[in-house]
């Protein structure tokens, strides 16, 4: 199967690879997928008091399309308000990266990662159960 130029570009030059300290108050972490399914994405968003995503980092275990989807998402969400980011649909990722039907689940996972990261940030922010989620995938 041939990869699209955009998938290759993100795979070869992934944007924003890395990690933020997961305990920082302004960081929301989302970990989605499972190792035995062959893909796990960790997306971290740095969100300011106004609810604007200032920065993003990812790490992904998965095929080239999964890596490209998460890399693209880090670019896509930067500067967006959390409500806007929550509204991002996987179809936007499919379209940008030209993903074939068998790779659509990669884009779904990336969409889930955004939601999981924002929800984690919200949980922290509302001051509810600040650290009780340790050990869980959402905390990475």
């Amino acid at each position: 199967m041939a990869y699209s130029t955009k998938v290759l570009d993100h795979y070869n030059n992934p944007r924003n690879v890395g990690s933020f300290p997961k305990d920082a108050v302004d960081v929301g972490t989302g970990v989605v997928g499972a190792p035995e399914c062959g893909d796990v994405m960790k997306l971290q968003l740095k969100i300011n008091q106004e609810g604007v995503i200032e920065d993003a980092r990812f790490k992904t275990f998965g095929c080239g399309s999964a890596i490209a989807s998460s890399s693209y998402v880090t670019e896509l969400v930067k500067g967006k308000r959390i409500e806007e980011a929550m509204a991002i649909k996987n179809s936007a990722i499919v379209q940008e990266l030209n993903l074939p039907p068998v790779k659509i689940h990669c884009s779904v996972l990336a969409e889930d990662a955004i939601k999981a990261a924002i929800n984690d940030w919200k949980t922290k922010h509302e001051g509810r159960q600040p650290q009780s989620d340790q050990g869980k995938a959402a905390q990475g």
Partner: protein
Amino acid sequence: MVKLPIYMDNHATTPMDPRVVDAMLPYFTEKFGNAASRNHSFGWVAEEGVDKARNQIASLINAKSKEIIFTSGATESDNLAIKGVVEFYKDKGNHVITCVTEHKAVLDSCKALERAGKAAVTYLPVDKYGMVDPDDVRKAITDKTVLITIMAANNEIGTIHPIAEIGRIAKEKGVLFHCDATQGVGKIPVDVEKMGIDLLSASAHKIYGPKGVGILYVRSKGPRVRLTPIIDGGGHERGLRSGTLNVPGIVGFGAACEIAGREMEQEAQRLRGLRDQLQANLFERLDEVFLNGHPVQRLPGNLNVSFAYVEGESLLMGIKDVAVSSGSACTSATLEPSYVIRALGTDEELAHSSIRFGLGRFNTAEEVDFVAQRVTDEVRRLRDMSPLYEMAKEGIDLKSVEWKRD
């Protein structure tokens, strides 16, 4: 400098040996006759070519030339052996014994018979090295068992089964023994007499011959094996496989077998050396690399390893100048990770992380060095990108994590 891309997927198929091409060429042009044409020299010349090939192939596996039936490949041979025996011996019984890591050509032939209500099949498990226990074979035999079908060597992990022992048990119990030796013939010694094999499948394109030609060996004596054909027509190949013979392909298969027989010992030694070099390089440079398959009882050119925390397809993508294959779900048509690796009982994610290197006649030591370095660099890059590697390094037990599945 090595020439790119490098082909290191010789279990999937092999490039043709130029000596084999040379042997075939006349049979496309001046010697184009139909081997079944009895009344002119064109037919006789073609038949001579086929006869010679039959001898060359038979001698490699210690069979008689009349016991060789030409087919379109090992897939057809497996189908013919399994369906042909079950159909022919249906009054005697309906039970077939095979194992979970067989090639799909064997497994799906068995499943088709089960679905049609024509056979009951026992799928034996394998140990952590992918090997069948001959004792399990013995215990599975019932008075309804008509066929045991176990491969010589596995196409993914290279594990070589104890074929001679299984053959002995089959003889002792009076059950026919089919062996899919597609990956074994020409690479390791295969002897139908010493190993008690009654039916054997092999394919030319795995041993530097052409694609689209295979054989089924069918024992003629002690016992004489009978089969119901699956392809009807002009009655070629003693009525067992109708259809005009693929003369150039057959001639090529013969030449490939002759070369393989002559050079096997030397070639196996060389490939084992290269394979061990590749394995040593990878294991020295990287942590958390796991060998899939048997450490010793393994095809000389086979190396199947899992690079933990790295998904196989992404690794293949990163080493695009190197042709190897992966057991990752993303590389399979079914979107399931390799059933062979999973049968070893290792963690499911290691199946997603498995890479198969298949070294062959035309690989060099320089290529091995290049591949080892490319793979090492890429595994490191991908691990730096892997949340699992990060978590493992932080001391998190990945098994204790509650994963959020879709």
